[in-house]
């Protein structure tokens, strides 16, 4: 008897969860890590996404309808990412943005391909996304950001142009992101005749770097290239400063977030050089306005993830508008013809592999001051 009521209520529950498709809005799905080790990245991405949607809706939305977001947490976990992608698809979203972590994007790619839903990613950096997307592969996945390979080349080129750095050590987290970045940096350095004296991979969430720092301090490295999650990087930089290791920082750095801002203000990033997809200091009117809006709304300056979220929404919204219909295939086709003016300057267009090769920002730090040296296209 109990089982019957259970069975019936179970069925009712499942049916009740049916797609809550609002006819009056254009549904866009977001898959982002909102819990887990990189949840802060997800939070910042959401800030950019929400800001863009508010702006677009304030101007009348797309296709004359407001955009409605369906946000799901993928925990940066591939299996959860698959569940989330399916869920969003069944919710009737026109397209999905985000996923953020490379392994989450890679896991979701077959799902969106099978269902025929465009996925716009602005943060994941794995080169295998490039290999798998677009021509001869999965035509539903579009990436806005430059891959780490492109950023590393830009970074190394600039380092080489300084002429003062001949020996570099690499410190990276042991994840797809860290290993991909380290490999790209090493390759680029080799091409420019810069010697890589050591490469260290540490587990994500490592708390203590004194040992690596002790070794690096004696290795003769003039610069240390970092490919780490923000919390680990903050730890590393703080301990480096305290241990008095004299080497400039490079690799993929940014200075956003409370911890990094404190470190920057304390001079811990002095002489750092980095190529990054974004810097809040980039001096374009669009970026200045964007930073001001975020600061007004959240009391914090823009981070890369916020910027990426913002542009993901705008690129997608423009494509939907061009397609003239919320039809997924039409939106995909429109996405391939994207020509969007990035707030960093330049225009976003997708290549054969649906990669946009967005701008890279080269910044350097003198004392506590970040200067944008160059903003250039990575293709």
């Amino acid at each position: 008897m109990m089982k019957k009521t259970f069975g019936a209520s179970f069925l009712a529950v499942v049916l009740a969860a049916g797609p809550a498709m609002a006819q009056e809005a254009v549904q866009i799905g977001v898959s982002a890590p909102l819990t887990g080790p990189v949840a802060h990245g997800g939070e910042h991405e959401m800030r950019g996404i929400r800001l863009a949607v508010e702006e677009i809706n304030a101007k009348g939305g797309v296709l004359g309808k407001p955009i409605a977001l369906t946000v799901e947490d993928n925990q940066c976990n591939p299996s959860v990412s698959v569940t989330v992608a399916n869920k969003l698809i069944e919710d009737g979203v026109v397209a999905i943005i985000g996923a953020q972590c490379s392994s989450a994007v890679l896991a979701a790619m077959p799902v969106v391909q099978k269902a025929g839903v465009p996925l716009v990613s602005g943060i994941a950096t794995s080169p295998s996304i490039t290999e798998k997307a677009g021509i001869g592969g999965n035509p539903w996945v579009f990436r806005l950001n430059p891959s780490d390979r492109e950023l590393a080349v830009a970074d190394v080129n600039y380092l080489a142009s300084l002429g003062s750095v001949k020996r570099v050590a690499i410190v990276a987290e042991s994840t797809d992101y860290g290993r991909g970045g380290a490999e790209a940096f090493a390759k680029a350095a080799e091409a420019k005749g810069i010697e890589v004296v050591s490469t260290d991979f540490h587990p994500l969430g490592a708390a203590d770097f004194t040992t690596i720092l002790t070794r690096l301090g004696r290795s003769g490295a003039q610069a240390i290239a970092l490919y780490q999650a923000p919390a680990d990087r903050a730890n590393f930089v703080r301990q480096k400063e305290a241990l008095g290791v004299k080497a400039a920082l490079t690799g993929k750095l940014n200075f956003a977030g409370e911890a990094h801002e404190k470190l920057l203000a304390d001079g811990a990033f002095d002489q750092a050089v980095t190529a990054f997809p974004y810097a809040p200091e980039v001096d374009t009117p669009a970026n200045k306005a964007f930073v001001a809006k975020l600061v007004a709304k959240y009391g914090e300056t823009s981070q890369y993830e916020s910027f990426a979220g913002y542009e993901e929404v705008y690129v997608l919204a423009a494509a939907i508008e061009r397609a003239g219909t919320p039809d997924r295939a039409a939106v995909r086709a429109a996405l391939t013809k994207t020509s969007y003016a990035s707030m960093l300057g330049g225009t976003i267009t997708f290549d054969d592999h649906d990669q946009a090769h967005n701008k890279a920002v080269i910044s350097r730090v003198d004392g506590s001051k970040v200067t944008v040296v160059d903003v250039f296209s990575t293709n």
Partner: protein
Amino acid sequence: MDPVFLGQLLLNGIVIGLIYGLIATGLTLQFGILHIVNFAHGEVLMVAMYAMAALLPLFGGDFFVAFAVLVVLASAVSLLAARGLLAALATGGDGGGIFEKSLLLTLGVSIVLVNGVQQLFTSNPQMATTSFGYGAFALGEIRLTYAHALASVVAVVTFGALFWFLLRTNAGRALRAVAQNREAALMIGLDPTRVARRAVAVSLVLSAVAGAVLVPIIVFQPTVGQTLLLKAFAVVVIGGMGNIGGAVAVALGLGVLESLVGGFADIVWQNAVAFVAMIAVLAMRPQGLFAAAIRKG
């Protein structure tokens, strides 16, 4: 071999080992006295770090004042928490005894604390600044940051106080007595519940102290406790489940060994050290290790 490099590695290892020791002795006390494993022990440390970060600005970044306030707060909260935990463990259940129940309950507490703190404070990395900033002592060419030095001093003083308490006070003797032989403790009229409550409270304060001294050293997130707990767990297993002196010695050894491995070999093997050692010990000397567990289970 370069003596400066070696010296620096040893020094780093000792500092880290001392911090492992603070966490591991707490776990050891709980296992030794109550035969429980506390999965939420790392979350105690994490909550203490957030509390410390909140306290520091109130006292102008003065570490010592904030630390004193934290220890007082932690002691009060720990007594309550210990009472709650013991009451919870004493409720009737079918789960196969207090050991299993402790694992399940504290796992639940750990989930709630990690996600609750994340909900309240987001998972943004937190960094607290203290009055001594990035300063460091220079011992010749070897450097020891003020923060590390302070952590070491606090740890050594804490261990000293702990051993004094265990060896020289009646309450401490009662703790050891219950750990060594529960039945004999009952024979002489010691109240094991009261003793256990005291032991749990002391161990929670130890973890809070570890969190407090880590605040000036590391940047942290709600998950910070979990990584550290795994190391401490390995220390407890290697050190012989319930042996405080053993735990401190193993923690120091692990810190130094990790430092040497990181200094001379690949850094990813640093984490493996604890687990390989744990497996080796489990394979080679398990009966010694589980002496305490066997008596009970």
